[in-house]
């Protein structure tokens, strides 16, 4: 059997390895890598890559966990990062402003100084030209003038720089546009390396323009000066020498002082910023701690409260919001305690009452019962009227007794007084006992009870008494409503669950009845005469018994097509159920045999719902149309392995979705262990494929 496990919505999580492949066909390697997620754990790809990722991820995991769990850490880190950002921004703005302020003053002073210098140089050259003109105007004048200019320029540099007293240096460079300069090489005051100290682009600009230009540079000294290079402002202009040849005159103003001031400001700001950031972090830590400590205390106390220590209270000091939280919390705890106390008292009273009623009713009933039996035994000696009365008395006492027993059982469930006595049991034994107990009734009805799937042990931790009661109820019901057709009891176990399904081919259930059968005192057909005195509480009690185990009891049926009741129990008591090894709708239902294609409506009409009141709601959702089932199958239904046994390590083995689809899609496919259909199958074709047959 490879049931589609009607209640297997949880299986969505089951088949993880197949999902990404099936859904996106052409997922790139990186896409898949990202989808797998660095921190999700599901990394696909080569083993080496996986190993590396794991190696990278491992030290990060505790940090991530701490980050997720610790709000204090989050707030402190966020505060630190944000204040760091603010401080950096502030620092850049302040430093920019200070730099601008410092340089503006210096540039202005330097410009006026340089302008003066240029004017002095021009005047000096004009004077020298006039003097040369008056001194001699002979043929050899050119050569002499050349000599004079060399001397003149050296003098100019000396005289100009002497006015600054180290506040600036003066450099002259030949105008490169002037071609051959005739020995008028670069000159500089204060052992400045003239060519290295003046940037090339400034020289180009001065060559092509007549105005004054400025730039920032570093003053480089000759190695003999033993001085470090220093930042400077350089202002230059093209000036004519006495021979009216252009040359370049530069003023270099060292900015060392300004730079020192600026670095002082920077240092101060950095220190202050660091302090601010650290202090803000510390403040955030302290502030958050003030809030978080009471919250943590509340969380701890809430945990202890929920663990049942109802007298736990928070300590409240002051009147602030935290104190209000504490007060409200304590008030809540107080009310909770009160309510729980009341409920406990109520439950105790109820239990006490039930117990007392039980005793008070049962003792006289025992006497009546025994008296009735004695009278019943002796009825042959009575006249017919009295004899019949004795029979009625005995019969109705039976009915009264079972009704009383069921009522008491139900009220025990309602009072929460039902206790589970779970131990590992083999459900096959329980089923065999139940079936052999129901066989006399089946014989009277002319039906035949078969057991399927009992080749291997079906062991679960369960309360044998209760499970037997549930199964007896189901089997007796199936025989009673089976209209003399076969009843099939199917066992299966897979994953963490075991299941017993009881299938009959009788009147079945009308739409909507699958949920109502579990209601108290519900009757399928009020007009129908009852053959055995059911109390109307049997299925309600069975449902409660199933719930007590953490299991499910669900019904399926179609009108005229019989019904199936399925009991699913977790294999161990504390394990939650995630699915059932047997599909709720049997394979030989009309729909699964494809009869819906033959003219019958395939809408929700003929399908019966399951029980809504199960512990996990969405598994047992009604199945309105065919499509959702197929799609659910298509995505990821854990295929239960019927051979999975406790202890042999077998688990739910997901099969390829396509295979499951194919199996379910073929209409009317004769299943390997398909029981005989309702219409044709009562003529006792029993054991095939190793099915055990427990007939008459």
């Amino acid at each position, binding site marked *: 059997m490879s049931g589609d496990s009607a209640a297997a919505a949880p299986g969505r999580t089951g088949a993880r390895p197949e999902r990404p492949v099936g859904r996106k066909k052409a997922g790139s390697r990186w896409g898949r890598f990202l989808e797998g997620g660095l921190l999700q754990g599901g990394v696909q790809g080569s083993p080496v890559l996986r190993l590396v990722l794991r190696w990278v991820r491992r030290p990060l995991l505790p940090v991530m966990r701490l980050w997720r769990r610790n709000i204090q850490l989050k707030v402190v880190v966020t505060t630190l990062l944000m204040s760091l950002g603010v401080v950096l921004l502030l620092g850049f703005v302040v430093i920019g402003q200070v730099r601008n302020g410092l340089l503006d003053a210096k540039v202005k002073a330097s410009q006026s100084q340089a302008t003066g210098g240029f004017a002095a140089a021009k005047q000096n050259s004009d004077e020298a030209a006039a003097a040369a003109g008056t001194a001699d105007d002979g043929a050899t004048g050119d050569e002499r003038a050349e000599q004079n200019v060399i001397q003149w320029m050296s003098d100019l540099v000396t005289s100009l720089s002497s006015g600054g007293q180290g506040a600036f240096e003066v450099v002259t460079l030949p105008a490169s546009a002037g071609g051959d300069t005739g020995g008028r090489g670069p000159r500089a005051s204060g052992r400045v390396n003239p060519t290295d100290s003046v940037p090339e682009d400034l020289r180009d600009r001065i060559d092509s323009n007549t105005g004054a230009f400025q730039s920032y540079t570093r003053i480089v000294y000759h190695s003999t000066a033993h001085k470090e290079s220093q930042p400077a402002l350089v202002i230059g202009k093209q000036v004519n020498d006495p021979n009216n040849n252009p040359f370049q005159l530069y003023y270099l103003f060292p900015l060392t002082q300004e730079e020192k001031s600026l670095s002082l400001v920077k240092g101060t700001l950095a220190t202050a910023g660091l302090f601010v950031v650290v202090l803000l972090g510390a403040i955030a830590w302290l502030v958050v701690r003030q809030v978080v400590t009471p919250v943590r205390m509340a969380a701890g106390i809430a945990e202890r409260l929920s663990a049942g220590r109802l007298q736990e209270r928070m300590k409240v000091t002051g009147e602030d919001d935290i104190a209000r939280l504490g007060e409200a919390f304590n008030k809540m705890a107080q009310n909770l305690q009160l309510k729980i106390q009341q409920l406990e008292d109520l439950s105790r009273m109820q239990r006490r009452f039930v117990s007392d009623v039980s*005793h008070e009713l*049962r*003792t006289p009933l*025992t006497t*009546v019962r*025994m008296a009735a039996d004695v009278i019943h035994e002796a009825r042959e000696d009575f006249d017919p009227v009295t004899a019949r009365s004795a029979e009625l008395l005995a019969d109705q006492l039976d009915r009264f007794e079972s009704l009383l027993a069921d009522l008491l059982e139900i009220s025990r469930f309602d009072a929460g007084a039902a206790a589970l006595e779970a131990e590992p*049991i083999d459900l096959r034994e329980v089923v065999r006992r139940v079936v052999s107990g129901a066989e006399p009734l089946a014989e009277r009805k002319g039906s035949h009870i078969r057991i399927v799937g009992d080749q291997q042990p079906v062991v679960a931790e369960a309360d*044998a*008494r209760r499970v037997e009661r549930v199964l007896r109820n189901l089997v007796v019901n199936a025989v009673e409503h089976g209209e003399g057709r076969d009843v099939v009891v199917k066992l299966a176990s897979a994953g963490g669950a075991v299941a017993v399904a009881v299938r009959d081919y009788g009147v079945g259930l009308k739409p909507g009845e699958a949920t109502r059968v579990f209601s108290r005192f519900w009757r399928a057909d009020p007009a129908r005469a009852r053959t055995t005195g059911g109390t109307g509480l049997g299925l309600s009690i069975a449902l409660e018994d199933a719930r007590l185990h953490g299991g499910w009891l669900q019904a399926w049926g179609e009108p005229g097509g019989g019904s199936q009741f399925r009991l699913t129990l977790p294999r161990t008591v504390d394990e939650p159920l995630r699915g059932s090894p047997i599909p709720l709708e049997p394979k030989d239902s009309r729909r699964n045999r494809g009869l819906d294609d033959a003219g019958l409506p395939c809408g929700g009409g003929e399908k019966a719902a399951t029980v809504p009141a199960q512990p996990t709601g969405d598994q047992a959702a009604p199945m309105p149309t065919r499509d959702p089932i197929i799609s659910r199958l298509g995505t990821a239904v854990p295929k239960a392995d019927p051979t999975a046994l406790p202890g042999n390590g077998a688990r739910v083995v997901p099969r390829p979705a396509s295979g499951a689809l194919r199996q379910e899609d073929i209409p009317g496919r004769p299943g390997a262990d398909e029981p005989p259909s309702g219409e044709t199958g009562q003529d006792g074709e029993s054991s095939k494929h190793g099915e055990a047959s427990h007939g008459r």
Partner: protein
Amino acid sequence: MMSFMKGRVLVVDDDTALAEMLGIVLRGEGFEPSFVADGDKALAAFRESKPDLVLLDLMLPGRDGIEVCRLIRAESGVPIVMLTAKSDTVDVVVGLESGADDYIVKPFKPKELVARIRARLRRSEEPAPEQLAIGDLVIDVAGHSVKRDGQSIALTPLEFDLLVALARKPWQVFTREVLLEQVWGYRHAADTRLVNVHVQRLRSKVEKDPERPEIVVTVRGVGYKAGPS
């Protein structure tokens, strides 16, 4: 047949109507009933009448049934069948742990009651000379004694029957249902708690360490079997 069915039955019940009805039924089946309605007087009545079996109602005025059961069990291994109106696990287990051999839940049918009583009385009717060994215990079936290293261990008849049933077929694992049938005489499966409680009681008497049983071994998911001898 009739000879062993004769038996003195002490009915301890405060409900006079029920007691009278029980008397009618028991007499009709050939037993000799005697009655006591008060828990305080139950022990005296027991000593006086020396019954073959005690029918004991759990809810009694004065001393309650549990206490009476304990007192009787302290001085005799006579079969005790509890009558209880409560089928809750706790009540049943407490009753069984106080020493009752069997219990029957009200309301019961007269035949059911008589069957239980007969099942409890029948066992003394088959004295087959037989020596059995289970673990380091030696059982003399006919002499109704269990000895370890010559020291005899006192068991109630029911506990003795349980031990003998296990010891006779040491290769077989007994399900609780089989034990119920063989030892208690239940035809249809009944409450397996009977077996659990009595196995515990038996272990507390015959095992060296009841936490780690060696004589009566639990076979998980199935039942019990005799330990290797």
